């Protein structure tokens, strides 16, 4: 375990130094969320009505606060998820991937550990987005339960690692084209409730929303940050996310092992 932590730290340190070596881009990424927050703030003025308030009343919140969490979480989860593929492809194109695989490290860690920084950095950006929403545009997080929010984030990251590993496995073999990421982006935006409550969806699509882990991630985050929910309120969301991880992670790890083995057999580990 100690060795794994050391290894994780080494990956985070490497990625932090690479990220901050692009100073302008680093600053831009941290501040660019302002424009998205402003956009949704003005849209929320248009959307704010009795009907919309009724739809999100279970969060004891207004639409802007509701959508602010959706915007921040979508950015965090999408970028965290694409982090798996981005890091892998960067390693392939830079040429560093083969050298990393030649070192005495379990291949699965080479796929998983670079994503720690991706999730951490995206969490920081999401925090800044939420903070701007509160400080500049008056979003209401006065009841936020940050401790349970952190628990939801952890469970979400674990369940999203399933998608991340599956994406990375596909990229390992086909090199380009990531259907999982594309599907995730569409599902988050349209079905899982990133920008509007799932109650608005037609019943059959609402059924689809119920089997997506992202629906429970958004729900859990809003319940803790907007309504100050604790374990009783988010227990079901956590259970679904945990169940998804328990079933999905072994499958995703098996897929990753297969993909790495296939790339080694084809001699295409570092090919892009």
């Amino acid at each position, binding site marked *: 375990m100690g060795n794994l932590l*050391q*290894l994780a730290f*080494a990956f985070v*340190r490497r990625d932090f130094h690479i990220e901050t*070596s692009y100073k302008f881009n680093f600053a831009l990424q941290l501040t660019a969320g302002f424009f998205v927050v402003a956009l949704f703030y003005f849209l929320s003025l248009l959307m704010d009505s009795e009907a919309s308030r009724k739809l999100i009343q279970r969060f004891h919140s207004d639409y802007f606060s509701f959508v602010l969490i959706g915007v921040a979480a979508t950015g965090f989860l999408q970028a965290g998820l694409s982090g798996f593929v981005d890091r892998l492809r960067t390693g392939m194109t830079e040429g560093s991937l*083969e050298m990393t*695989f*030649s070192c005495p490290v*379990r291949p699965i860690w080479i796929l998983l550990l670079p994503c720690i920084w991706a999730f951490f950095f995206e969490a920081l950006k999401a925090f800044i987005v939420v903070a701007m929403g509160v400080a500049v545009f008056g979003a209401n997080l006065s009841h936020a339960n940050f401790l349970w929010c952190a628990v939801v984030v952890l469970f979400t990251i674990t369940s999203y690692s399933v998608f991340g590993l599956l994406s990375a496995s596909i990229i390992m073999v086909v090199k380009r084209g990531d259907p999982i990421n594309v599907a995730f982006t569409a599902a988050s935006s349209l079905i899982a409730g990133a920008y509007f409550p799932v109650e608005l969806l037609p019943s059959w699509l609402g059924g689809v929303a119920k089997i997506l882990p992202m629906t429970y991630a958004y729900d859990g985050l809003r319940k803790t940050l907007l309504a100050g929910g604790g374990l009783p309120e988010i227990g079901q969301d956590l259970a679904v996310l945990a169940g998804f991880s328990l079933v999905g992670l072994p499958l995703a790890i098996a897929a990753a092992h297969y993909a790495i083995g296939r790339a080694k057999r084809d*001699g295409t580990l570092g090919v892009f």
Partner: protein
Amino acid sequence: MFAVNSKTLLKIEDVGKSFPARSLIDTLLGRPKRYTKALGLVSFELKAGQVTALLGPNGAGKTTLINIICDLTRADSGSVTVAGLPVPGDSIRAQRQIGYVTTNDRSFFWRLNARRNLEFFAALQGYPAAEAARRSTEMLVRFNLAAAADRPFHTYSAGMKKRLGLARAFLHDPAILLMDEPTNGLDARSTEELLELVRLEVRAAGKTVLWATHRADEVERLCDRVIVLIGGEVYFHGSVDEFAGISKRHMGFVIEVLVQPEDEKQFPALAASLGLEAGARKADGGWGVSGVGDEAKLSAVLAALLGGGLLVRQVERQPEPLHKVFAHLEKTGNTGPGPETAATTSLAN
């Protein structure tokens, strides 16, 4: 050249590898998979302390073989053991025994400085942060990079990049070094410096080295054993002296003879019968012919020319380019014309 003990550090046994070469159209049309052979059934052993050249032209299978040893590519057949550890069966422990120098400069993180690059790879070798930092500093000093340790990798010259590659390979004090064309892309001076550095470091540490190259001059400078790999097959495995013997037998010669106008028509046929390649006839009657062979062959050719009434103007000896030696080995499957030395092992076919 280097101290050798009898312990086998690397054992390659009947390793074969072919790569699938099927296009999307082949797949859609259901055509059977086609394969490109990269390695035939390659077998050899490296003893501890030996520096062995893996010599062969481009496309010979050198990189494929090294990738198989590092578990970056899986062999179709045969077995690989590194310090007694099977690859891929026990790859993680086997990889701890290997220091790998890739031909690819792009194996580092270009935005990081040299120190951070080394610290990252030291962490991958299992060292805690403090130890990783200490070892990285030690390697930067050892490979003359201390002054540039905090410069980003992308600002390094080709020679510095190669030295950093060596520093990374030595970081964890591995038992065996696999070096894949480490002088590739270097100018003559940088090549010379790098070879000297490797020679000193390898000698000082008593390392076992597999040095993949297509340059015979590096073999003579650095190695005590040679494996010639051509088209995925081992054509020669022996000492550097034995290999030098082959090169010697492949010395070329150029003879200029004076050919009278009345002999002009018959001369090409005579040259061909002696195994010579004839150039163009000069206006003054001089005619250059070239051939390959040792002193005995040259003497026989000269005797035949003089016996035919021709006057010899000039004789020049010149080493045969290595690719021609390779071509001959490939064609004959043995160590070349002339008597074969008893100790020379031809493993081909």
